[in-house]
């Protein structure tokens, strides 16, 4: 019987960026979120839903979303997910494209208000399994 060679498999590094299909961070330019417009029915979605939940269309056009939006609501979280440092802040941001984004907010607790203007930024949302921060979209006061 041939001896099975034991090859120690290199662990693939975990992601540090969430997620190229959703967020673009061009060099020397501000970041933007990627909306997806269904080529069949025209519905614009974030995040991308494949197939289109409205018409089951499978082809999309990427549309950069507005960087500024309105903070619809928020909460300062003092008890959060396991592994996340508290307090942190989350909120719903409504963009002019009629899309609502759930995101973490960059800033201090007790400072946000409903209906104020916020803008897209990026920052660490959690640590990956290698102990490195994962960068994603966040919002802050405009």
């Amino acid at each position, binding site marked *: 019987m041939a001896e099975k060679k034991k090859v120690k498999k290199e662990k693939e590094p975990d992601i540090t960026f*969430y997620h190229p299909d959703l967020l673009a961070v061009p060099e020397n330019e501000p970041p933007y979120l990627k909306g997806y417009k269904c080529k069949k029915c025209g519905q614009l*979605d*974030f*995040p991308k839903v494949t197939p289109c*939940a409205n018409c089951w269309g499978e082809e999309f056009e990427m549309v950069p979303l507005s960087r500024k939006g309105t903070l*619809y*609501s*928020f*909460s*300062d*979280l*003092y*008890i*959060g*997910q*396991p592994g*996340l440092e508290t307090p*942190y802040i*989350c*909120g*719903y941001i*409504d963009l002019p494209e*009629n*899309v*609502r984004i*759930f*995101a*973490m907010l960059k800033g201090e*607790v*007790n400072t946000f*208000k*409903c*209906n104020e203007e916020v803008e897209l930024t990026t920052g660490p*949302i*959690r640590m990956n399994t290698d102990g490195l921060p994962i960068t*994603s979209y966040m919002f802050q006061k405009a």
Partner: protein
Amino acid sequence: MKLQRDVYIAGVGETVFGKHKIDYDELGRNAAFQAIKASNIDSPGMIGSAYVGNAHNGIVTGQTIFKDLGVCGTTPIINVESACSAGAMAVHLAIKDVAYGLTELSMGVGAENHTLRRKSGTAFMPAMNDIETVHGGVMTGKYAMRATRYMYETGATIEDLALITQKSRRHGKNNPHAPFGGDYTIQEIIDSRMIAYPLTLHQCCGIVDGAGAVVVCSKEMVKKLGIEKPVKVRGSVVTSGPYHNRPRDITGDDITEMTSEMLYEESGIGPKDVDILELHDAFTIAELLYYECMQLCGKGEGLKFLRDGQATYGGQCVVSPRGGMLSYGHPIGASGAAQIAANVKQLRGECNGYQVEPIPKVAMSHVTGGGLSGTEHAACTMHMITADW
């Protein structure tokens, strides 16, 4: 669900809720056996099917509960999971079997033990494949954002939200199943630890263990079992969260509005005719919104409804007569079945020390289930039951 024939609740069971050293299966078995005895069932063969709601305790939960009761064998036992809706969904499926003539008698059970497995000090969250969860979403936060917006739009204060806790825990004060029942001052409630602004600890349901069980059967079986106080199922509705990523009014709740509307239609009983209601008061704000969503009062009138005493003894509808989740705590898979069990006991006048007077005739229950991005909740289950003797 259109009921093809009359379905009745023969008997119910519920455990004491709280931190238990015994696991979900023993809790479930205790509740189930109570319900079996209350229904005068004298042999395992009489149970045509059983559905078991559970969220976090693993696989083959139903068979684990029922094997020691001798119910396994030819009886189909089917496990049901939809987060907080699971227990009520299990009852719904039992009702469906009887309503469509598949069985003469079926059981719905909800059972859950969180505390044996769970580290305290963290919040419940949807699965990590959900985009909101990746970005820090937790259930407390989702409800807290509803509260933030409600306060912004109506001028309600944290003190107003605290009234819900005060009212429901007073209801649960003498209920031996409800560990958090009691008299609380508004100050105590708002001074308790901040969990997710504006929700303080005493505005959040506790993470506990427990079980509830419901036996449903046909009219013939009610007679055969000699049930003196049969409770009639007037409506049982399960829906799934409408999905979209567009702005929506979170001071409402699209899925609860839709489900209650369907339940009123199905049962022929309107919102003003409901005597008692157990709803998904996992957090204070939810109850306030649901008064409006279920049309107990008009849009924007929830706070007035509460302040006017319409949600307590002597009011239009006693909300959370057992004390609600705010007094029981909320073992996710168990609560939906336990609510129905508690409502049946109220209709039968069996709630010594916390009985609603005059004895109610119409009881409604409501549990949503699960946070899922793009929905308010993944699921919603509601039941309408009435005294029928």
